[in-house]
């Protein structure tokens, strides 16, 4: 009994602390990466290569005054305080369903710890992820509304429209993958992608379902509110949109949730379309070693997509709101539907 609770606590602590440690690392990568792209140095004063800069930033944010705009009282104030927590809680709860390594039946204190690496093995993992992730929009809308500020309100309204439209495209683009692997469980999706076709093409979903992969990646950008889809916080138009009025750790909660969402989105891209922790022609060894190697492979793939997020952000201009909606409804959704029709046709032909 006690060992069981201990194992659960260890799992929770390890996973969430790894996740939250990724945030400062990502901030550092983002800032140094932006500097590299922009032909400048970036933060390099604090610690080697400026690696301690995120810690200094965090200390600064914690010690700043936490302001509430005047005119925000009563129920508004409650929502105002609640919104950043929703953002962070949602972001972290989505990640718990993401498996990030091969689980060869490990045991700790005599208890199976399948929840550690392969998440609590939810048999409808992807549905859980979409369901919880869509709650994230509440934090943005509530923050925008409760701030008692017109710019924030516009940011919140844009967010609700944007997230609802892109969620649709995102979900439809995944249908093809689920049809092929015949399961909602992300572990099955990954296992289905091991091995190769003709001995050299990895059996990753991205190759047969390139349309679906592209729609999913684009929608992931929109879902995480990153440029070119960062209309929610469009700096030049809406100051910074829904978190204009937030300061101190409440702002940091929004900031962290953005990066956690990026990690989740990159992980999902890797799991659904790029073979998760599998590598073609590489047999994962058993036991703890195998688990660590598979986590390493997964981490490298995720790191690539995280870098991709950074790279795109510092390269492209921003869409206009109506163009974003037009892209979502008139291009992305038809493409996603086309993808799953093609996959369905392919499967039907094979079964003939």
């Amino acid at each position: 009994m006690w060992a069981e609770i201990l194992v659960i606590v260890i799992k929770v602590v390890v996973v969430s602390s790894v996740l939250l440690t990724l945030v400062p690392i990502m901030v550092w990568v983002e800032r140094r990466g932006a500097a590299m792209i922009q032909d400048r140095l970036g933060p390099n004063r604090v610690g080697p290569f400026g690696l301690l800069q995120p810690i200094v930033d965090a200390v600064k944010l914690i010690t700043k005054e936490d302001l509430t705009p005047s005119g925000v009282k009563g129920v508004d104030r409650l929502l105002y305080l609640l919104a950043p927590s929703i953002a962070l809680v949602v972001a972290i709860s989505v990640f718990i369903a993401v498996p990030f390594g091969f689980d060869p039946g490990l045991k700790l204190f005599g208890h199976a710890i399948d929840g550690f690496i392969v998440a609590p093995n939810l048999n409808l993992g992807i549905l859980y992820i979409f369901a919880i992730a869509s709650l994230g929009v509440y934090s943005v809308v509530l923050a925008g509304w409760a701030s008692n500020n017109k710019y924030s309100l516009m940011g919140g309204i844009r967010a609700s429209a944007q997230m609802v439209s892109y969620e649709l495209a995102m979900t439809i683009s995944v249908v093809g993958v689920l049809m092929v692997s015949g399961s909602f469980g992300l572990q099955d999706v990954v296992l289905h992608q091991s091995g190769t076709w003709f001995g050299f093409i990895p059996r990753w979903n991205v190759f047969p379902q390139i349309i679906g992969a592209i729609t999913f990646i684009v929608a992931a950008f929109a879902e995480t509110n990153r440029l070119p889809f960062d209309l929610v916080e469009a700096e030049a138009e809406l100051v910074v949109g829904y978190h204009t009025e937030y300061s101190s750790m409440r702002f940091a909660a929004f900031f962290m949730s953005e990066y956690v969402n990026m990690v989740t989105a990159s992980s999902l891209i890797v799991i659904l379309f790029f073979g998760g922790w599998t590598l073609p022609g590489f047999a994962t060894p058993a036991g703890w070693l195998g688990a660590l190697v598979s986590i390493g492979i997964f981490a490298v793939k995720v790191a690539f997509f995280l870098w991709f997020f950074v790279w795109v952000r510092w390269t492209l201009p921003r869409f206009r709101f109506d163009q974003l909606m037009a892209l979502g409804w008139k291009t992305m959704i038809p493409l996603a539907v086309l993808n799953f029709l093609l996959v369905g046709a392919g499967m039907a032909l094979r079964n003939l």
Partner: protein
Amino acid sequence: MAGPLEPLFDVEEMELSFGPQHPATHGVLRVQLRLDGEKIMDAKPIIGYLHRGTEKLFERESFNQCIPHTDRLDYIAAPTNNEGFVLAAEKLLGITVPPRASYIRMILAELGRISSHVLWLATHAIDLGAITPFFYTFRERERILDLFEEYCGARLTLNAMRVGGLPYDLPDGWVERCSELIDSLPKYFDEYETLLTENRIWKKRTIGIGVISAEEAIDYGLTGPPLRGSGVRWDIRKVFPYDRYDEVEFEIPIGENGDTYDRYLVRMEEMRQSVRIIRQCLDRLPDGPVMAKVPKVLRAQEGIVYASVEAPKGELGYMFVTTAKSTQPYRCHIRPPSFINLQALPAMVEGHLVADLVAVIGTLDIVLGEIDR
């Protein structure tokens, strides 16, 4: 098609005060917006937050003492401000400027134009969400400002010209360093264009935004790139050449549709033409004095003069009314291009979205120092 749907609940227009403290208004411009959702029904620019009474100050200071005040009009392109002022004063006093001084003025003015245009590109792009061009353009702008600093000790408020010529000759090696810089510039302009010109999002955000026809542009009195973007070939350097602009070859780029994208292309090409002008000026820079023989105390005749230059933002004009033997103008009026170009803002943004407002403010390339004076 059916008519517009009846709304199911009460709708109200929203008043939004865009600025004066806003990241995209390029200073302290305030635009009072009436919005239907995100659509702009009405936009009213409100100015005056940066008024310093420059014109009034001119009435109590001698001509050369006024020049530092002109730096603060369009503070990102000070050489043309100085140039317009000294040209008007020279016209009033009947002074001829030595050729070397004229050429150096042209070099400074065109460097100022490039530095102003790269700053415009930087802010315009950042308003539309492209952050990286900002850092690229500042890299080049720094080098231009270094040249200014080397010449006169200041980087922004140059105070680099005097009635009758220039206060200093070029320092040793300046010509070589300048020539090295302008040889490298076109390569950097290509770099900016790689990021933007054919970028589909950039095109979507700029084509068809803030359209103004040639007739309307003339009616509003627009000058500079906003006028040329609409296809009117009008440039003070060509139509009323001053300094030695009639001795150098350059083209005036024009647009076709008068939209934000055309004005972007016009300005990009203008920078290349400026490089061409500087190259010619450096090649045939004559020897000789940089200052004409002028009396210590400048005394004007009774009269009215107007002289204008093609500043990066458009026609910058100075008008003096003087009484006999006065050492300062009785009245000085400045025709700032940004002030007049800004008038077209309401017409250009009506019916567009809020996101287009920042695109149009960016494309008009206004400087509040010059608008409020």
